[in-house]
Each structure stands twice: as C-alpha cells, then as structure tokens.
C-alpha cells in the first residue's frame, strides 16, 4: 500500500514537471547543445594528436565514455532531495510531512523519482541518437558485463541517494544546504562524469578514489568499457556496498539527531 502511495507521488511529481512543457523543451535543447559543445571539444583535442590514443585510450573509447557517462550520470543522480528538504524546512511544510502516514524521506525520494524520469527520458533519447549518428560506439563485451554494469549503476544510484540524504539532513542545522553543495561540487566535478579519471594527475586520482563519487559514475563506466576482470568487478561491488552502508548509517544518525531540532512557528 505504501509503495503504491510512493509511486503515485512519483507520478504526480512527473506530471507536475511536464506541465511546464516549454521548460522541458528548453532542457532538451540544452542537452543537445551541451552534447555538441563537448563532442566538438573532444574532436578538436584528438585532432591535435591526429586521433592517436591518449593515455592508452582511443578517440572511439573517449566518445563512448562521454556518451555513456551522461546516461550513467542521469541514472545515478539523486539531486534535488536536499534542496527540497531545505525548502520544506524554511516554509514549515516539514511539520505536515511529519504528520503524514508516509515517511518524510520516502516522500522526498518518491518526488525525486518523478523528476528523474522527467530528465532521464530526453537524455536517453538524445544520447542514444547521438551514439547512432556518431557511430563506432563500443558496446559491452558480453551480456555478463552488461548485467554487471546495470547492477553497478543501481548501486551507484544508492550511493548518490544516501549521500544526498546526508546533505539533506544538514538542513536541520544550516539555513542553506546549497553552500555545502558548492564545497562538495569540487569532488563531484571529478567523479568521472565530466572527465574520465585516467586523464587526471595521479595525486588527484588518489583523492578521487578515496571518495564515494567516483564509485557512482566512474566504476560503472570502467565495467562497461571492460577494463576490469571478474575479481575487480566483485571488489568494485564490495566498495560500492560499503559506501552505501556507511552513508546510510551516517544519514540515519544525522536524521535522528536533526529532527529533534525542528521548531515550526505559526498555526
């Protein structure tokens, strides 16, 4: 029954987003532009070396990486939950959320699913279309690799979700969660969604590997491109699960402490 309620909330959130169809159209045009700009940059960079491999990766691998990682980024993204909680805290709506029979975090997650589909559908279409137009895109080596990639994506989503919930709980202490996001965005920019980790200097790679963000984007991409054997894939899953458990426990602890701080004024 509860699951049905959450799915309904996700559906309503998607419907609400789709009402503003001009914004939707604008998002689609944005995405196409972003794609063309970035592909032009990679093309210009590789043409400077006559399309020879760089750091052992060919131009085709790079384009495959860029196109697939955009879909990975969209699938694993859980953005918006912290912002939503911040708004509900400042408007006082959190009080009514607490009184509802559904869990407040569940409501926030369900609503983020609706928005996720809103962004995911055009991204899939655009990037799949681009893959067909550009051509030469590498597919996973085997169905097994593809299955491992999909599982890794799901775990990547859970990492981002639990991290987003950790960020959201800071709304109990700070007026603006956005401030913290700017600090974190340094590392999220280096999660592998903008540029593959193999292009970073070794010291920066070491820092990135010690953080959860690359486990959500770069690890699935490594599995997709086939740069890992079975043992490494299992080890990658283990790392992802450990991050999920750690972040889940942290957000639970912060949530329990934070909700005691809620003070809502007015009738």
């Amino acid at each position: 029954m509860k699951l049905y309620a959450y799915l309904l909330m996700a559906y309503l959130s998607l419907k609400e987003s789709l009402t503003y169809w001009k914004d939707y159209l604008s998002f689609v045009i944005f995405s196409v532009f972003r794609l063309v700009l970035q592909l032009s940059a990679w093309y210009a960079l590789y043409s400077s070396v006559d399309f020879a491999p760089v750091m052992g990766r060919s131009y085709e691998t790079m384009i495959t990486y860029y196109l697939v990682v955009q879909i990975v980024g969209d699938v694993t993204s859980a953005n918006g939950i912290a912002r939503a909680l911040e708004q509900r805290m400042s408007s006082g709506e959190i009080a009514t959320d607490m009184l509802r029979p559904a869990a407040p975090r569940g409501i926030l997650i369900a609503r983020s699913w609706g928005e996720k589909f809103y962004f995911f559908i055009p991204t899939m279409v655009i990037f799949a279309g681009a893959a067909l137009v550009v051509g030469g895109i590498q597919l996973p080596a085997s169905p097994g690799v593809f299955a491992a990639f999909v599982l890794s994506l799901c775990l990547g989503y859970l990492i981002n979700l639990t991290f987003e919930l950790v960020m959201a709980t800071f709304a109990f202490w700070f007026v603006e969660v956005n401030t913290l996001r700017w600090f974190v965005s340094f590392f999220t920019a280096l999660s592998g969604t903008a540029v593959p980790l193999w292009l970073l200097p070794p010291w920066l790679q070491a820092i990135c590997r010690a953080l959860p963000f690359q486990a959500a984007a770069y690890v699935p991409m490594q599995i997709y491109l086939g740069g890992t054997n079975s043992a490494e894939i299992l080890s990658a899953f283990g790392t992802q699960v450990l991050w999920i458990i750690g972040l889940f426990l942290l957000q639970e602890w912060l949530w329990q402490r934070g909700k005691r701080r809620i003070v809502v004024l007015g009738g």
Partner: protein
Amino acid sequence: MLSKYKRFCHQIVWFFQLCGMTLSMCWRGYISHKGWSALIHGIGLIVGYLGDYAVLYSMIMNFPGIAGFTALDICFLYSMGLVCYALGNVHTREFWKIDDLVLRGGLDLYLVRPVSPLVQMFVRDIQVGYVSHLILGLGCMLMVKGMSGIPWDILHWGLFFFSILAGCVVMSGISLIATPLSFWWGRSQSVTGFIRGGLRGTLQYPVTIYPKFIRILVYIIPYAFVAYYPCLYLLGKDTSPKAVLYPLISMLVGIAIHFAFWVFWRLGLKRYNSAGG
C-alpha cells in the same frame, strides 16, 4: 544646448549615486541576512569553481592543445568568461524575474514611480554575491599571465581592463536581450535560460572548434565577443594590429545589443496590461 548637456550630466551622476546607495543597501542586507554564512558561501563558490578548473585543465593538459590554445590559455578564457558573467549580471537579476512581474502585475510598482522602470530595475537587486567569481576569475587570469611568460606592456594592461569592461557589457546585453519576450509570451524563462545558461558553455573554448551553426549562433548571441576575441591579443594568438581593435569591437557589439534590448523593451512595455486588481 548647454542646459540640456548639464541635465544629462546631472542624470548620469544621479544614476551612479543611486547605484552606490543600492549597492550599499544590498550589501548590508546580504550580510545581515546570511552573516557568516555569506563568507562560507563565498568560499564554497570558489572551491566549487576550482573543480571546473581542475576538469578543464586535466582534460587539456594531456593534449598539445585545442585549436592552438594550451590548457593555460583555456583557463584564461574560462576566467574571462567567469569575470564577465559576474560583473555583467550584477544588475540584471531583477530582469530574471520578469515572468512573475508581468504575470502577477508586479511591474505596476515600477511604472507608477516618477523614474524610468528600466533604471529602477537595474538598481533594484544588485548582486553582491558575485565577489567570489571576481576574486577567483581575476586571480586565475593573473596567475595564467605569470605562468605563460608573455611579457605584458602598458598596451596589454590597458586592453586587459578594457576587454573585461567590454565583455561585461556584452554579457549584460546577452542576459537582458530576450527578457522582454515575457510581454508577448507571459513566460520567457526557457528562452532566457537557454541564452544565459545553455550557450554559456561556448565561452571556455575557441569558437573555431565548433560546427558552423554554433559559430553563427555565437555571433548572433555574441558570446564570441565576451572572451574569445578580446583575449586573442592578450594570449598572443593574434598579434596583428587589427587584434588590438577586437575589445573595441566587443564594446560596440555590447552597446548595440543594449540598444536592441532597449527598443525591444519599449515595444514590449506598450503591450503590457496590468494583471493586478
């Protein structure tokens, strides 16, 4: 004739006094609302943008360059874009809310006062939070200048400051140009957002790398004149005498786009019907 000239000068002085007063009010409002959070937010912005620099630099340093521009040159272009974006949008934030002002009748408030609504909107919401962009952008440009080893003479320094000024004027015009669409469409957020945000990505790379349709677009919506052309001489990519004139051309483009905005605004204002009661 003399009295007309005096009146014009008086208006200019008054406008800048108004800007100064609003700036002071906005600054005090920002600090008293956010307190220490303002400082932390500013540092956070710098840290966040450093991530973008790290991505850009790491991406390009593995290659000989991009269309003849090195990783450092690209950082310079990006910084120029950042500084111009910040300075060029200090006064445009009120126009970003034009949809609501038109649809809810909030524009009436500006129309009933004995001062041009444009002037009021320019000084209504001056953004002081862009200081971080300025510190980071200028700091990086000066750092790149030091690392690139190109000796700058007085002409370079003059062009550097003039290029920033011209880039800001162009950027401000770009942010404003589509906002009067709200008078016809009700909501123009999608178009203005696309012009302001979607095309902003073109600032960081040389325009020559893009396909023809994007190159044409960045001349129509003149992003090419914000960073790319003004920086050619400064980065030593084009040392011909005509390259010295690029910042001046940018300034003319900036003035032209503001003029187009003014005409567009006046046409739109004639169509405006108050929505309020």
